[in-house]
């Protein structure tokens, strides 16, 4: 029954599983990137739920300090901000590489790309400018 009451944790682990499976099992690169984002978001949900305490406010003191028990723990939120920045930059890099890959192979399906074997196993003449 505890599993049912920990909504956030259960939901985030389910999302994590969905994301990981999408990332690993899908051959389409765009779907892989989407899977990676779902996975990262699930971790953010998990962490942010750890910092949340019902009925408390964010630790921003405006006029009067209301004591320690009035505020939530800000560290998880700070961690998630960093995590989001990292996830965004990784996504950007992945998308950029995908565009490059699409330009040179004409497809974003990894299986088809792996079938098209380059002949770069012997001769070193495939330099882009030679």
């Amino acid at each position, binding site marked *: 029954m505890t599993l049912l009451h920990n909504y956030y944790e259960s939901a985030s682990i389910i999302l994590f599983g969905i994301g990981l499976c999408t990332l690993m099992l899908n051959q389409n690169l765009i779907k892989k990137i989407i899977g990676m984002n779902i996975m*990262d978001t699930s*971790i953010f949900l*998990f962490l942010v739920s750890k910092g949340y305490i019902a009925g408390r406010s964010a630790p921003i003191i405006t006029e009067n300090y209301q004591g320690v028990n009035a505020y939530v723990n800000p*560290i998880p939120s700070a961690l998630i901000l960093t995590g989001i920045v990292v996830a965004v930059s990784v996504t950007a890099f*992945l998308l950029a590489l995908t565009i490059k890959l699409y330009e*040179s192979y004409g497809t974003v399906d990894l299986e088809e790309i792996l079938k098209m074997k380059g002949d770069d196993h012997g001769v*070193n003449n495939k330099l882009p400018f030679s």
Partner: protein
Amino acid sequence: MELITSFPLAEIFILFISAFLMPFFKKDKHIKIISISFLLIAFILSVFTLMFVFQNGPFYYAAGHIDTILGIQLYIGPVEALLSFVFLFVFILVVWFSFSTIDAEIQENRIKLFYIMVNLLAASILGIIFTNDIFNGYVFIEVAALTSCGIVVVKETQENIKAALKYLIMSTIGSGLILMGIAFIYAFTGHLNIELIHQVVLEDHETFQKSLLITVALFTAGLGVKSAMFPLHTWLPDAHSSAPTASSALLSAIVLKAFAFFLIKILYRMIGFDLVNQFSILTIILILGCCGMIFGSLSAIFQKNIKRLIAYSSIAQMGYVFFGIGLGSPFGAAIAVYHMVGHAVTKSALFMCSGLMIEETGHKTIDRYKGLGHEMPITFALFTLGAFSMIGIPILPGFISKWYLSLECIHLDKLLLIFVVLSSSLLNAVYYFPILINGFFGIENLQDKEYRSKKVPVKKTIPIAILILAMILIGALSKNILDFISPEFGL
């Protein structure tokens, strides 16, 4: 004294600053000078740090002087000081080597980007080594993952883009697992500092035994992907063989090791030897290490492309590191660290030699290298010495780590594992010796062949020669190095 304790942070900072300085310069020559001079400054600082740790023992440094619970803390023990010293040494020599080869390998407008990436990578690797805060470690791991993909894709061929994408996707799986592990451990300890987590874990590990097991598994799988643990290594051969020579030397020699060292930190400093031995995780690491040693060597035997061969050899060598970690004894972990040091120096030298061979012959396949030992004697002699270390000829570091691993197996009463070490060593010989024998004794194959240039300039081989010399020194001083690092693991 106070000043020296801030050197580790200064090393990380000046390397980051150097990376952000480079875009302001136009000429490639200036970029190269900035890259190597900042690496040199960091190296000098690391020498001071090493000497300081040697005299005064390990120390902590709170970044920004914020107290431990909130702030980011660095921990510099003997292992950290030694690894940062060796890695920066390898970085400098590889960057020096790259000056003469990188122009021919990548497009001109990419050279600047390459050196920016290299300095960012150096900074993030140092960060991973020094940090005592797991979330800070995660951020550095991400920077290292992005930049190491960057130095693969800097050479824009189809092959490279494919390899880099494969690497980045595997890497993101690893990062996701690591971040989940961090979230788990933060959820039930409330700390991010390795030392504080260790205290909490020691006190109430019985209340969250299963969560702890999941956390350790998440970290092991996540860092295992990044440091090419056996079934998760599929990205490595493509990425390391298609990258420019200097990049593959850095990736194989340093990046893999940093992640493996972070795993040692997690297992042995965060969880602790006693507790981690209760989990079956260590046995799994041990078995995967054995599989990596055997499988990596077996795959290397069938490779035609020299860089792919050396890349598969890296998987086998990482197998030794995981073998050492998986033994679950303090001395095993110390040998794992020693093997990282020895392998970092050797593998970078081997990759650089192979780069020169490819440049000289214009071919990547091994059967073209018959008689090459007469054509380029210095390079081939250095390659031979490096290969001897991989195979395990006495005095060289490869032999010493295998010897101590075997001794530790006897000590722990795991006699069967010695056969794994021995057979892996034999397999190493199976794929390195043909290159060497064909190289030196295949003179009849030299006729009717035109090589691009008759002689490799001696200048190009100096960095490799220094690395090989350092390798022999590491082998000769093995006892001192092991004595220096083993107090860290409680010996």
